[in-house]
């Protein structure tokens, strides 16, 4: 390492430390205060787990969470199918009519403000209901349709980069050995891009679980998702139950990410070991 890099490293490290403190400070504060006895969230009243107990008794939050999980799982699954098709179209077919349009349509939902997506989809659903009689009213179905649409864009990005790195000759070899196109897809392509599909699914799932704005627009009276409940309760100020909920979410996500990271590191090490043999 050159002298210049060494001398600059401590400065960069300081930056990193402050950066991570900025990212994690608020989350830590939520966790700490979720164990606060006092209802006044910011005044410390001693350790307690009573808010967790109350949270688990809160029918409204529990049923909203259940609905959100259902919507997230369904919309993520459809988004993976659509996003994978879009990614394949963009990677495999270099030239086709409407290609640049498709490029724009898969990139736009990622930056498009949610208020616009939400309002425009609501108006579409109402018109469809008028003309086609479907989707009848608004609720779970319309939320799923909306979430599929913006989540598929993210799936496309993830799957596309994996597909682009996939060696074309693998599919050619399979075809040469007698596999028909559909067989090639299921025996070769799919297993190799599977990690990207899993990552895409998780991303779509999280985005759906997290969405407040679009769901608020396209939802109907019967369907209240978890973010909608959380929003209406935090609008009224800080609430210890929400802190407890946040802590549970953070812990679950961290465990999942740590687990994924552990698997990745282990695979990496195994690869290195095998390669050094």
């Amino acid at each position, binding site marked *: 390492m050159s002298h210049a890099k060494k001398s600059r490293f401590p400065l960069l490290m300081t930056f990193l430390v402050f950066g991570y403190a900025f990212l994690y400070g608020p989350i830590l504060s939520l966790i700490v205060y979720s164990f606060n006895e006092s209802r006044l969230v910011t005044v410390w009243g001693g350790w307690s787990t009573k808010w967790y107990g109350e949270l688990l008794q809160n029918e409204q939050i529990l049923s909203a969470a259940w609905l959100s999980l259902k919507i997230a799982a369904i919309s993520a699954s459809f988004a993976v199918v659509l996003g994978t098709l879009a990614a394949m179209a963009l990677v495999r077919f270099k030239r086709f009519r409407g290609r640049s349009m*498709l490029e724009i349509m898969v990139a736009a939902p990622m930056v498009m403000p949610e208020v616009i997506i939400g309002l425009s989809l609501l108006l579409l659903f109402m018109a469809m209901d008028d003309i086609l009689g479907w989707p009848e009213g608004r609720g779970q179905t319309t939320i799923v349709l909306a979430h599929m*649409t913006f989540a*598929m864009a993210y799936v*496309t990005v993830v799957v596309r980069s994996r597909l682009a790195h996939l060696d074309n000759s693998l599919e050619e070899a399979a075809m040469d050995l007698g596999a028909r196109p559909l067989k090639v897809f299921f025996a070769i392509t799919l297993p190799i891009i599977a990690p990207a599909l899993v990552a895409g699914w998780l991303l779509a799932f999280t985005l759906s679980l997290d969405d407040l704005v679009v769901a608020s627009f396209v939802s109907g009276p019967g369907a209240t998702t978890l973010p909608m409940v959380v929003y209406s309760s935090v609008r009224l100020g800080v609430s210890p139950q929400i802190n407890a909920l946040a802590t549970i979410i953070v812990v679950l996500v961290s465990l999942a*990410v740590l687990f994924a990271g552990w698997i990745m590191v282990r695979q990496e090490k195994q690869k290195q070991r095998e390669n050094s043999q």
Partner: protein
Amino acid sequence: MSGGQMSALKLAQRLPGAAFLSNGRHWIIGLPWLWLTLFFLLPFLFVLKISLSEAVLAQPPYLPFIREIEDGAMTLVVNFGNYMLLFEDPLYRTALLNSVEIAAISTLLALIIGYPMAYAIARAPQAWRLPLLMLIILPFWTSFLIRVYAWIGILKNNGLINNTLMSLGLIDQPLEILYTPTAIYIGIIYSYLPFVILPLYATLIRLDDSLLEAAADLGCRPWKQFLTITLPLSMPGIIAAAMLVFIPVMGEFVIPDLLGGPNALMIGKLMWTEFFNNKDWPLASALAAVLLVLLIIPFVLWRHYEQRQEQQGEAR
């Protein structure tokens, strides 16, 4: 098979539907294309349509476009009143300018904070990079709403910051942070930081170290190396990061609503209020249409730039 049947069969094969079924390629391209056209593009037409109608207290709360006047005669009523209002009422103009200002400044601040972090991660020892990156992404997987909410507890008058500063005796009056523009900036930078760091990291990690070595060999000092080599070559990442912040922040609702308080004026929040509180769907639609037009310009420029970059990459 008779000649008539034959020609009917041939005709059927030529119909777009038949080709669609007979060819996998058409499915792969057609399905996502149709879906996005129907659920992403088409809805904007409805926004445009509603924005040109009049608001009423009814369900749905707007008057139809084509109306029946006496004797069954139909007439097309196009109402530009909503757009007129947007340009005449200072409230909307202020909201618009505010949104542009807040989006631009927070994009700049996020880049200033995010660039050194991305740079540090890219320069970190190989074994550290993956864990460091995962730590950047991890908050993104937890609820956005809850992360914004966390700042309320920190910034409010009897929140974490003020309590700490007061107990240390540094101030005796609580600092007003929550429900000010500062709180909005903090919330935006905090929420969008991963979107800045990831694309920047992706370009920085691809940077060839030997370029810097060559520059150093030619007598270029470290700071100058950064300005003349690293910064220009990371431009694609900077532009991607800026767009990933600027465009969605222009229409942001949750952050100004929770941290900016009732007086915060941004288009996204105003749209929400017009729609949910005032039930003025046509006006909300007009706001959405104006915002959309404003955002299309940077978006198209960005896509154009990205495609040019890609082509250059392929040519190389």
